[in-house]
């Protein structure tokens, strides 16, 4: 059964990612991104990272995609359509995609990975499924990064306020 779910979620993720790339309308692209993120959250749940799946849905699918939709609708620059791609751009980006896919495929196929999950002790939940482990790591080993990330969020908030402030640009500076 997890196998079926893996293929379902991976198909959903990849198909909607293609939708993000080729969609004419930026609003539709944002909604495809939302579906793609939901697929990734399902894959996280299959990997026993339930907290991260919930966080991904809340932070990405909730906040980030909503912000994207808000900005797309705020700017609404071209009536939702796009010009057809230039031939040079299409060829160059396809070559770039092919190079990257070849490199990644070679890397994955040449490397020997363990094919089975590390067996957990009998009656013990997998390591990502227990919230207590997260708390232990975040407040002991990774205490300093937690503080730094909190500070980073504060700085980002201040930066956004400064950036989006309408300042009267003095004309004589030009």
């Amino acid at each position, binding site marked *: 059964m*997890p196998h079926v779910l*893996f293929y379902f979620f*991976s198909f959903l993720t*990849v198909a909607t*990612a*293609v939708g*993000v*790339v080729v969609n004419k309308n*930026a609003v539709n*692209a*944002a909604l495809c*991104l939302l579906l793609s*993120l939901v697929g*990734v959250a399902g894959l996280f749940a*299959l*990997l026993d*990272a339930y*907290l*991260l799946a919930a*966080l*991904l849905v809340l*932070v*990405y699918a909730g906040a*980030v995609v909503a*912000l*994207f939709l808000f*900005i*797309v609708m*705020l*700017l609404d*620059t071209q009536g939702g359509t*796009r010009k057809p791609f230039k031939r040079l751009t*299409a060829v*160059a980006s*396809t070559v*770039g*995609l092919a190079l*990257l*896919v070849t490199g*990644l495929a070679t890397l*994955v196929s040449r490397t020997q*990975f*363990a*094919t089975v*999950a*590390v067996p*957990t002790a009998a009656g013990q939940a997998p*390591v*990502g499924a227990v919230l207590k482990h*997260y708390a232990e*790591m975040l407040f002991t080993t*990774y205490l300093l*990064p937690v503080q730094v*990330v909190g500070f*980073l969020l504060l*700085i*980002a908030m201040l*930066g956004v306020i400064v*950036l*989006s402030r309408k300042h009267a640009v003095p004309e004589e500076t030009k």
Partner: protein
Amino acid sequence: MNAGLSEYLVLSGLLFALGFFGVLLRKNTLVIYMCLELMLVASTLALVAFSRFNGALDGHVFVFFILTVAAAEVAVGLAIIVALFRKRQTVMVDELNHLKN
């Protein structure tokens, strides 16, 4: 029988490549930004898969930090795009060529 590590890595690589393709192909700054987010999520998927198949929690914690930084990054990036639009009245990258000459 669950999917193995290499399946997850192939999927993550595919997702990353699709995001990269979008960044190269599209002209709208907002869609380019969405494709960047797709690449970031693909890398977090690889991290979670590695972490799961090694039985360690460090990758999960790393993804936790990546999610936080990505949220901050999106807020700042979209504010920059809005400021750019206010100044130039466009978000198409081929019209934003004021550094050219």
